[in-house]
C-alpha cells in the first residue's frame, strides 16, 4: 500500500448569502412582478389567480415571461429582465418544475434577490431540494422557495386553481408579505 498525496479535482464556490433577504411587507401600493416561462400553463393559471387577489388588496401586478436564453434573443431577454426588475418592488419567480427551468428560475430569482428585491422562487415538490441546491451553488443558500404540489402541470385547470387558492396564504408567509395593515402591524 503506497500512501501519498493527490490534488483535489473540484472547485466549489466559497461565498454565500444565507439571509432570506428582505420581507415583502405590506403589499398595498407595491408593485409585485411575476416571472413566467413558456413551459408551464399551470404556473400561468396560478400566477393569474394570485395576481387578482393581490390587485384586490391594492397591489399593482406585472408579468415578465422568459423566452430563449441563448444568442441575440438571450441577450434581449437578459436586458428586458433587468428592466423588469427595475419596475417592481417584489419578485415572485417561477416555475421550478423541471431541471433546466429550475436552473433558470433560480438563476433569475438570485438576480432579483441580488438587486435587493424581496424575492421568492416558486418550485414544485419534486424540485424543491434541487432549487435549494442550485440557489446554494449560485451563492444564495437563503433564497426563499415556496413549494407547490407535484405533479402540477399535468392537472386540469380547476384542480390547479384549487391548489393556487389553497397556497395563497402560505405563499404570502414565504414572501414575508401582508395584505392588510393590521396584519403588517402584528
Amino acid at each position, binding site marked *: 500500500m503506497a500512501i501519498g498525496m493527490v490534488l483535489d479535482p473540484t472547485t466549489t464556490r466559497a461565498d454565500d448569502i444565507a439571509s432570506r433577504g428582505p420581507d415583502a411587507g405590506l403589499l398595498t401600493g407595491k408593485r409585485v412582478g411575476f416571472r413566467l416561462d413558456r413551459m408551464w400553463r399551470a404556473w400561468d393559471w396560478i400566477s393569474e389567480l394570485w395576481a387578482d387577489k393581490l390587485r384586490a388588496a391594492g397591489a399593482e401586478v406585472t408579468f415578465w415571461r422568459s423566452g430563449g436564453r441563448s444568442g*441575440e434573443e438571450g441577450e434581449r431577454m437578459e436586458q428586458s429582465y433587468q428592466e423588469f426588475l427595475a419596475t417592481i418592488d417584489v419578485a415572485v419567480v417561477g416555475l421550478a418544475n423541471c431541471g*433546466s427551468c429550475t436552473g433558470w428560475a433560480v438563476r433569475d430569482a438570485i438576480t432579483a434577490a441580488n438587486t435587493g428585491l424581496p424575492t421568492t422562487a416558486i418550485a414544485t415538490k419534486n*424540485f424543491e431540494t*434541487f432549487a435549494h441546491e442550485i440557489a446554494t451553488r*449560485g451563492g444564495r443558500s437563503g433564497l426563499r422557495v415556496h413549494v407547490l404540489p407535484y405533479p402540477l402541470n399535468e392537472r386540469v385547470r380547476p384542480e390547479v386553481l384549487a391548489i393556487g387558492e389553497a397556497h395563497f396564504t402560505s405563499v404570502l408567509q414565504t414572501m414575508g408579505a401582508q395584505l392588510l395593515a393590521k396584519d403588517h402591524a402584528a
Partner: protein
Amino acid sequence: MTIEFIKPGAHRPALSSKPLISRDCGPEGCEVDWLASRRHETDLGIDAFTNFALERGWGDGLPLVPPTDARVRAFLAKNDRYPDEVIAHLPPTQVECTVEKIAINAVMAGAPPESLELLIAAIASIADSDFELYGVNATTAPVYPAFVVNGPIRAALDIPYGYGCLGGVATKVAAMGRAIRLLMRNVAGQVPGVSSQTTFGSPGRVAGLITGEWEERSPWAPLAERRGVKGNAVTSFGTMGTMNIIDTTSHKARDFLEMIGKSLAYPGCNAFSGAVPFSELMVAINPICAEIVGREMPDIEDVQECLWKFASVDASQLQALHRGQLEQQERVRANGRVYATPEPKDILVFVCGGPGGLHATGFHSFGTSLAQTRPIATAIDASQLRTGT
C-alpha cells in the same frame, strides 16, 4: 410574436486563438511549483484511489488515475500553459475553471498531455453563454456536449473520423472525452439527482463524444472553417444523443437527404417542443453518401436547404395541445408545416464514419443551446522567436 431566427449573441469572442509561446525551460523542461489545489492523503493504488474518489463524489465509477503532484506537473510540463490561468467560469456556480483543474481531471481520466489544448478549447466553447450550459447541466434531458474536431490535430491526437468514430474505437479519445465529463462533475458540479435532474442520463455522459470530421472525404469545406475557424478547431454541440438513420435503398442525393430529413423530424424531439422557441440540428453524413450528395450538390447550402425542407412536420398531425403551443409561437408556417429549425443554416452538416456507408447520424439539440466553434491553440516555439526563424 413571429418566428425567432437564430442569431449569435453580440458578446461573441474572436474566432482566433490567443498567441501561445512555448515555455523555454531548457532540456529538463519546466518545473511547475505553484499548484494551488488542496492536497488529500490517500492510498495511491488504483482500486483504493477509485474508492476514495467515489466517496468524495469525484469519480464516475470507472478506475481513476491518482492525480499526484508528480503526474499533474508532468502533464503541465509537456504544455505551454500556466496552471493558474482561468479558462472559463462554469455554471451554475460560475466558479473558475483553471488550467490546473483541467490538468488534474485529465490525469484522473487518463487523457494524454498532448490533448490539453483540445480540452481547453472544448471547455471554452461550452462556457459560452450561447451554449446554455446552465440548462444543459441542470435539465431532466439526457443532453451532453458532443465535439467535432477539425484540422491536423485529428491525426496528432488519434481522433477517429472513420469506422466507429462516435464511440468504440480504441484510442485515447475516450479518455479525453472522459476528462471533459469529469470536469462537468468536479468543476461545473453536475451530479445526477443533486445538481442535475436528468431523467435517464446517457452513455455519452461517461466518456463524452469526440469525433473528427473526415475532411479529406468531404465534398464541402470543413465544418469549423464554414463556421469561421480554419485549421485546428473544435465545434461543440449539446446533443440529446445519437440517432441512427439507415438507408439501403436510395441512390440519389435528394433521396438520401429526404430520408435523413424526415427521420430527424419526429414529434417528440427537442425541435418541436412547445417550450423551445428555436433550436439547431446536426447531421453526420458518411463519406460514401457525402460523395453522392456532393456530386449533385457541391454547395453545402443546397444540402442544408434540402434537409430543412424535409425536416418538418405537418402541424395537423400533432396532438392539439402541442400544436397550440407551436401556434402561439407562430411556428406553423403558411403551408401548414412546422420546421425543425428556423432556417436551413441551422442544420449543421459534417462528414465522418466508415466507408461502409448506409447510415447517417442525427444529433438533436437541447433547448436553445447553440453550437460553438473555437480554435485549438498551438504554441509558437520560443526558440524560433529568438532566432527569428
